[in-house]
């Protein structure tokens, strides 16, 4: 089969994604690209203006305050209402957005020049004061954790700001590209930002009927000429995978992000719908509570790691829609190392030997889960059977969300599993989760080796030094095993054949300004 003179095999060979997939080895069918998606990914049509689409996300958005980052469903919506200082492309390049250029004055100072034509949806022009206001309020909000080194913002002129950091901060650009939605002081003071988001983004919020839909309309004073293309976008939350897919297949919905995993591969050849390229940007992993027995002993944690059969998780948990993962990122991330100190796993005998050394031959542990989170529940079941081969008895204890987070947040658990939606820079996962002084150190790990590796990786802005330091982060975390990576779920967007320009980004934002409709 060939598309525009390129046969499928040649195309696969040429694409970076698949090249990286080959390097990873064993990514299997999860990243395969179907012929219909090639045409869309390659931009086979010229963007046209106009039209309205309906987007179906999985959960209801709950809070439009961009500093709170509350639920991915909220972020999916408000990332199109707010603009960030810089953007990331799907090949991991940082490109100008509200900041036209940025430069590092020294290891702890960055200066950014801003566009002079951005206007907030309330009519206020965007200036350096808004950038300062946004960053001044961040430390009181959840997203502040991703700017841990930020000290103060200095307004140099109307369209120039300088960030002063407490120490060199390697992931600064990535943090700007992922979490720097600029808010307007007047709008925040005059209305509840959770309900009334006012940004400079390509769309303004026309209507939010809670529990039903959010309608975004094109912002005609958007600072990028000719964008966005679509006039209106309606977000609806449809929790059931089958219902969402049916909506797409029957033309009620134009864009969805998740189909029943079992059908994913067969849908790639569907004539009714089109898939974007699949990108593994959603790591899934086990978290072990290192602050109390039995997992305060590294050998016990390593024993668990030796029991893990990742391929089984990829197959039974995600039905082939994920790749196996031994670190926070997978190809095509430029940070991917492929390091795996547990090559040859599952090896129950090695696990047994480690348990014997630790004096924990008859290990009994409890897995913390939530009955309404299917992936967590299934992970527990698969893990239980894998650990049993090394003589480990694991009980699954399900809790309602409130209790779950209470047990988890106060370290009253043995092990659990979760996903992570911020991996543009691997520091976004490793640093909050495994750096011992971090407020998000849910594993309760205190490891000099991990801390040193992370400090070398994070507290420098020299990219070469960062790349040299990163493998030790992967090795240290794998060796200490406060978290054990299982899979990386492939993000794939499904659209009607009329919707173009939709592709997963490493920042996981749905960038509507790139999408257009051609019937």
């Amino acid at each position, binding site marked *: 089969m060939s598309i525009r003179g390129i046969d499928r095999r040649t195309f696969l060979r040429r694409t970076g994604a698949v090249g990286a997939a080959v390097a990873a080895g064993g990514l299997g069918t999860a990243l395969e690209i179907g012929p219909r998606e090639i045409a869309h990914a390659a931009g086979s049509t010229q963007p046209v203006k106009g039209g309205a689409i309906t987007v*179906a996300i999985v959960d*209801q958005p*709950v*809070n439009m305050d961009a500093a*709170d*980052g*509350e*639920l991915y469903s909220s972020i999916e919506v408000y990332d199109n209402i707010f603009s960030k200082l810089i953007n990331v492309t799907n090949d991991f390049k940082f490109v100008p957005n509200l900041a036209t250029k940025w430069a590092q004055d020294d290891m702890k100072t960055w200066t950014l020049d801003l566009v002079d034509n951005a206007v907030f949806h309330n009519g206020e022009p965007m200036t350096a004061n808004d950038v300062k206001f946004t960053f001044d309020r961040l430390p009181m909000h*959840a997203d502040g954790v991703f700017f841990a080194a930020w000290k103060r913002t200095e307004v140099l002129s109307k369209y120039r700001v300088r960030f002063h950091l407490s120490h060199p901060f390697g992931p600064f650009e990535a943090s700007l590209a992922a979490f720097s939605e600029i808010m307007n002081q007047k709008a925040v003071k005059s209305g*509840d930002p*959770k*309900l009334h988001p006012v940004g400079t983004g390509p769309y303004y919020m026309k209507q939010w*009927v*809670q*529990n*039903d*839909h959010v309608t975004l309309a094109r912002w005609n004073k958007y600072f990028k000429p000719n964008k966005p293309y679509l006039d209106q976008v309606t977000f*609806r*939350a*449809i*929790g*059931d995978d*089958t*219902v*969402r897919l*049916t*909506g797409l*297949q*029957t033309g*009620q919905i134009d864009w969805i992000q998740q189909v029943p995993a079992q059908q994913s591969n067969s849908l790639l050849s569907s004539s009714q719908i089109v898939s974007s390229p699949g990108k593994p940007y959603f790591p899934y992993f086990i978290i072990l509570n290192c602050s109390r027995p039995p997992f305060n002993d590294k050998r016990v944690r390593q024993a668990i790691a030796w029991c893990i059969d990742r391929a089984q998780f990829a197959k039974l948990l995600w039905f082939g829609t994920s790749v196996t993962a031994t670190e926070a990122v997978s190809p095509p991330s430029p940070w991917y190392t492929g390091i795996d100190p547990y090559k040859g796993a599952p090896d129950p005998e090695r696990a047994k030997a480690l348990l014997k050394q630790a004096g924990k031959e008859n290990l009994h542990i409890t897995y913390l889960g939530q009955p*309404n989170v299917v992936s967590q529940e299934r992970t527990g079941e698969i893990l239980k059977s894998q650990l049993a081969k090394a003589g480990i008895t694991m009980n699954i204890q399900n*809790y*309602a*969300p*409130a*209790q*779950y*987070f*209470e047990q988890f*947040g106060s370290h009253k658990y043995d092990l659990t599993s979760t996903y992570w939606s911020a991996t543009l820079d691997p520091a976004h996962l490793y640093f909050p989760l495994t750096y011992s002084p971090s*407020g*998000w150190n*849910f594993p309760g790990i205190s490891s000099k080796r991990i801390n040193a590796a992370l400090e070398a990786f994070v507290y420098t802005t020299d990219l070469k030094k960062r790349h040299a330091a990163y493998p030790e982060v992967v090795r240290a975390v794998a060796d200490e095993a406060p978290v054990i990576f299982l899979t990386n779920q492939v993000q794939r967007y499904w659209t009607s054949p009329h919707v173009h320009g939709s592709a997963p980004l490493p920042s996981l934002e749905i960038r509507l300004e790139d999408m257009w409709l051609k019937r």
Partner: protein
Amino acid sequence: MAQALVRRLLIAIPILFGMSLVVFVILRLVPGDPARAVLGLNATPELIAQMHRTFHLDDPIYVQYLAWIGGLVRGDFCVDYRSDQPIAQLLVQDLPVTLELVIVAMLMSIIIAIPLGALAAVRQGHVVDKVTQGLGLVGISMPDFWIGITLILLFSLSFQWFPSSGFVPFTQDPLQNLKDVFLPSLSLAVGLAAVLVRITRAAMLTVLEQDFIRSTRARGIREGSVIVRHVLRNAAIPIVTVIGMQAGYLVGGTIVVEQVFALPGIGNLLLNATLSRNYPIVQAAVLVLGISFVVTNLVADLMYIVLNPRLRTASE
């Protein structure tokens, strides 16, 4: 009649008060801090403390209850923990969806079940009776969510007759609104219809065996008239009783059905709020659903009086 209505309404007051108390206390007996559930992984000690202060979560339970009840009396249902939106606004927006769903489902089940039940009774032991009873058994056995998904696959995906999700208000587009609620209502109606078929059949068989029916037939009155005017009317009281009681089942069923069809009703609101321990929404939604249950039973009580002249005399 008016006296009976007032008496029933007065009885409803302690019922609703008790219900509010039970819901309030039970929610607080469930282990776990709602601030943690709402904040999730973002739950830092500072944010948890801030939320406790904002929503008075550290006050004694009776103080919280009195504050809530005091607010209700003033029409203030408190605000959503997550979005800060007034809950009264959410209820006003979502209640019509659920009410429409329940009313249409009830009408559907009555239209399906009563003729089928009557037919099964009249043709007792025949094939029609056996098929009807078999269908009733199947209807009772199938859960709402499964019926919903099956209807979506059949009528939305295969035939493309009805949408698989979404809701347009009746005032905005009546035809689209009816299309939107048809499948969800049918999902709910199947279970109730199955119960009603069996009740209608059993009640009619009891009446059919009575002497006055034999006398009516002996007077040469047409069989259709005997069935509709005499048998069905006398069998109506148990049927109305069951419809009243099953209203609660329908309201409960909306929680699942609204989730499946992504309808913006109270059931969907309640489910999401329960999962995140959003106390004020759960309390308000349960109270509203409780009121609708009480009102439905009140209507059923009044229907008895209309249907049974002896009760009318007694109430007077």
